[in-house]
């Protein structure tokens, strides 16, 4: 473990280990941290991905409608919703969802990734939904998706509130722009203006925050996975933290940092696609 070497030599060995697959031994699983990451990361990625999809599907239409009909009853409704979404901690949302939709009405399962009676699909990607689809096991797919709804929604509520607000203010701004006025005066159908010309530029600031929120989800998932007993990477990280397992903690922080970097690169690509000004500037080499 090179404990008698100076700290920067130790750091060098650590970096060398990261690139050669030796991430150190996690004390509480007694094996290489990299194996743990491989085992636990897919389920958290699945959870965050579903939350991200829910987020986008709800926040963008909400923001679009609220901004298009600014200061109407709909706008006020969305505003109140987004304030509530920001103010309620995700762990409270999770517990409330568990009690109302899980315990009270039995609509959704309360904990875990699959029912006791369902055999997990063979591991291909580690994402139960994709694995079960690949093997044609639609029963397991439905069951896995059913288990994802509550935790993913609890995870998505805060970001939904934030992105709906940003989308709204972007839509309001674009609504008063010259090009929208000229589209209205040319008599373009309302639908075309809203969906084609208003939504696209408004998505740019929304997507930027969206990506930041998604990369922060691995932190928010800590509490959600704890509450829903989700066998994922964040719960692994939480156990590592509570037992002060340094190798595992470092791995969790490292993976979170990598996710942040990847999310930011993806955002730059998407924003470049959405915003022709950025694309053209890149081409002319300024």
């Amino acid at each position: 473990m090179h404990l008698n070497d100076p700290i920067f030599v130790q750091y060098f060995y650590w970096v060398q280990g990261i690139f050669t697959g030796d991430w150190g031994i996690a004390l509480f699983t007694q094996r290489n941290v990299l194996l743990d990451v491989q085992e636990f990361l897919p389920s958290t990625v699945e959870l965050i991905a579903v939350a991200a999809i829910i987020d986008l599907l709800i926040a963008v239409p909400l923001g679009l409608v609220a901004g298009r009909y600014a200061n109407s009853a709909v706008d006020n409704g969305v505003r109140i919703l987004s304030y509530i979404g920001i103010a309620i901690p995700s762990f409270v949302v999770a517990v409330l969802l568990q009690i109302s939709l899980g315990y009270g009405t039995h609509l959704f399962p309360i904990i875990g990734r699959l029912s006791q009676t369902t055999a997990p699909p063979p591991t291909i990607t580690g994402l139960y939904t994709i694995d079960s689809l690949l093997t044609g096991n639609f029963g397991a797919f439905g069951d896995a998706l059913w288990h994802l709804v509550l935790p993913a929604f609890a995870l998505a509520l805060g970001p939904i509130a934030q992105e709906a607000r940003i989308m709204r203010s972007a839509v309001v701004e674009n609504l008063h722009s010259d090009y929208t006025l000229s589209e209205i005066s040319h008599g373009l159908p309302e639908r075309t203006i809203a969906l084609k010309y208003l939504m696209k530029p408004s998505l740019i600031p929304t997507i930027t925050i969206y990506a930041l929120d998604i990369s922060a989800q691995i932190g928010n998932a800590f509490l959600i996975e704890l509450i829903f007993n989700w066998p994922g990477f964040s719960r692994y990280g939480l156990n590592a933290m509570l037992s002060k397992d340094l190798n595992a903690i470092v791995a969790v922080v490292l993976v979170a940092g990598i996710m942040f970097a990847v999310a930011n690169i993806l955002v730059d690509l998407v924003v470049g696609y959405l915003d022709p000004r950025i694309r053209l500037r890149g081409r002319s080499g300024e």
Partner: protein
Amino acid sequence: MGTLTHGLGCEGEAVNNLKSGRSLSERYGRYWYKFRRNKLSIIGLAAIIAVIFIALFAPWLSPYPSNAGLFVNFAAAGQAPSGTHVFGTEEIGRDIFSRIMFGFQYSLMLMVVVLSISVAPGVILGLIAGYYNGRGISVVIMRLADVFVAVPPLLLALSVASVLTPSAVNAMLAVSLAWWPWYTRLVYSSSSSIRNEDYVRAAELVGASRWHIMFKEILPNSLGSILTKVTLDCGWVILIGASLSYVGLGAQAPTPDLGTMIAEGAAYLPAQWWISIFPAFAIVVVILGFNLLGDGINDMFSSGIS
């Protein structure tokens, strides 16, 4: 249309010049007018004043002040809300209403400590990075900030808190460590553009020192965005502090803390719902209050055309 917006811009400048000629009280009156235009901001302000008041005078206001600390009364354990215990009692018989009042103390203290530790260094580093934009020191500061920003604040706070011994003070330290880079980035972006304004050039020309330029010329002009962020962050800091407590890495028992109370009460849901629902509600009020207040302050400093 292009010329028209340009004209509007000039008009805005003229208004600004006029404003600086006005007396101080008139300027504050204008800020207050912009703030109170939105009723929600007033609600937020009222909620926060009420919470601060309750926290300050909790020992005198609460019906059972002794319940805040080590106190056990099994005869009264798990009672539903009633006339004697407005929000009911928890699993060892302590009055939840009293404990929430004391819980505000910890939440507000965490917020004040975290923001006073992290805002000042964050802002100063941002000023330096913006002033020396493009030079080595600026690159060092901003890349350092990027490293901290790359890890989600809750995750960074959790990992730092876990490596230290779990306690209230260490939780505050952990959250502060996750917080300063956001201010550095905010101030950097505003100060590196203000740096090239004519009045900064003019101050340089007449031989003002670099500290004078940073603190007297650049800082006052980025104060609006800093203040808005501070108010909005108050809610976030309290939320992250509660999350730390929820997993047991924040304030330790018997300190009354809203996050810990929610976590402990969750085991008794849904039969004894009052144990965790009321503390959860209390935390929602605080966070909502700071968010509404922050939006009001944002209205105050934004140019009021919208």
